[in-house]
């Protein structure tokens, strides 16, 4: 490998794509510098809203008792979020009012993630930190609001002071709980999504540019063969990415439900072992 690399280094050299390449120049004004106007990522966000609206609007336009194919798909997706995430996490008593939020979250994240796997669109919106921060902040505000509505200002105490813990350990535990619940939680909530999407996006870019360079910019047949190998390998990565895109949408929604459930229950999870409540 090394001699091959050396053979073209002095003349051209391979410049790998960087994070910057994940941020295309803005569209309005056309090809302006990054951060001044309307970019592709924003277009993707708007597109996702329109697509979700269109899909579910068309599917449920003429709902029939015996669903057609599209209606069945839409209802299955809805039932998955409603029962699989909402009811299982939040419980029969509370889940109903949170179904719209969970549903919107799941499909918003899912569609924006899947954009990364569609040619031409080819940009998972949440690979840009801003989008991930935005949606995580919304969830952060919502679950703190839920806690305050259910428990009043006492919620903050309930959330950070675990029950059944010896009092001498509290000075150590309370700061940890504050950091973990109110500072680290929204960060991990957003960065988990953003990092997985960005990494997937970078892999696609790297495979694409690397294969292009190997095939078109070098004279060696061997390099061209390697380039084709890279393309074949990237197909496997593509499917891995698809899996991660769906999985991260699920994880993000699941965590949202868990945070809301935690705010309703308002019991800081004790670090020490405690008998698990018997599931109904």
């Amino acid at each position, binding site marked *: 490998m*090394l001699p091959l*690399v*050396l053979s073209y*280094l002095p003349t051209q*050299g*391979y*410049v*790998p794509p*960087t*994070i*910057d390449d*994940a*941020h295309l120049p803005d569209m309005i004004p056309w090809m302006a510098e*990054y*951060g001044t*106007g*309307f*970019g592709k*990522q*924003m277009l993707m*966000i*708007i597109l*996702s*809203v329109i697509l*979700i*609206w269109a899909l*579910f*609007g068309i599917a*449920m336009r003429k*709902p029939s*008792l015996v*669903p057609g194919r599209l*209606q069945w798909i*839409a*209802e299955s997706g*809805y039932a998955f979020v*409603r029962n699989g995430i909402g009811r299982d996490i939040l419980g029969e008593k509370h889940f109903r009012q949170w*179904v*719209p*939020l969970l*549903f*919107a*979250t799941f*499909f*918003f994240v899912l569609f924006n993630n899947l954009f990364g796997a569609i040619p031409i669109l080819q940009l998972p*919106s949440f690979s*840009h*930190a*801003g*989008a991930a*921060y*935005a*949606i995580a*902040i*919304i969830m952060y505000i919502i679950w703190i609001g839920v806690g305050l509505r259910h428990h009043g200002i006492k919620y903050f105490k309930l959330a950070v002071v675990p029950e059944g813990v010896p009092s001498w350990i509290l000075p150590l535990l309370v700061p940890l709980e504050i950091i973990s619940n109110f500072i680290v939680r929204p960060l991990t909530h957003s*960065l988990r999504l*953003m990092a997985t999407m*960005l990494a997937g996006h970078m892999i696609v870019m790297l495979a694409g540019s690397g294969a292009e360079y190997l095939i078109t910019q070098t004279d060696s047949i061997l390099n061209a063969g390697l380039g084709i190998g890279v393309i074949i390998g990237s197909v496997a990565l593509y499917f891995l990415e698809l899996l991660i895109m769906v999985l991260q949408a699920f994880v993000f929604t699941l965590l949202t439900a868990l945070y809301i459930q935690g705010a309703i229950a308002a019991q800081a999870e004790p670090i020490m072992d405690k008998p698990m409540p018997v599931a109904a």
Partner: protein
Amino acid sequence: MINSMTIMAAAAEQEQANPLIPNIWEIVVTSVGFLVLLFIVIKFVVPAMEKSYVERRDAIEGGLERAQAAQAEAAQLKNNYEQLLQEARTEASQIREQARTEAAQIVAEARQNASAEASRISEQASVQIAAERQQAVTALRTEVGTLATSLASKIVGEALEDDARSQRVVDRFLADLEKEQASTTSAGATE
């Protein structure tokens, strides 16, 4: 090694965008986009879904109820039919039994009538035969007596004009004749 060092050097030359630093406008657009979607979902999607779910459940439950009612009705009808059928069968067998009895009675009556008629006819015939025979015997007796008397008077002359005497002779003759005849018939009967 040289390769990776070169890449790192090239990367260091460029000023890298920190992927953790957000673009404010993207935050705004994403937030607004999500809130718009949430509004649409709350307003249109979830009500439509829940409505469809409730309608389907009602339809299925209503269908089940209707099916149960229909089944109960069918069971009752079947019961009724079976009862009717049972009654009809009983009645039919009764009718058959009655018909058989009647037929037997009719046959017996007919047989009795026939035999009565036959005996009546045969009795009548025998009476008639006896009467005719009596008549014939009487007629014969008179005629034979007259013939024999006239014959005898022709043979022995007018001497035998005395009626009483001739009558006695004739009677004796006939009694002998009858006796003879009876012995021959009894002999014929024993034969």
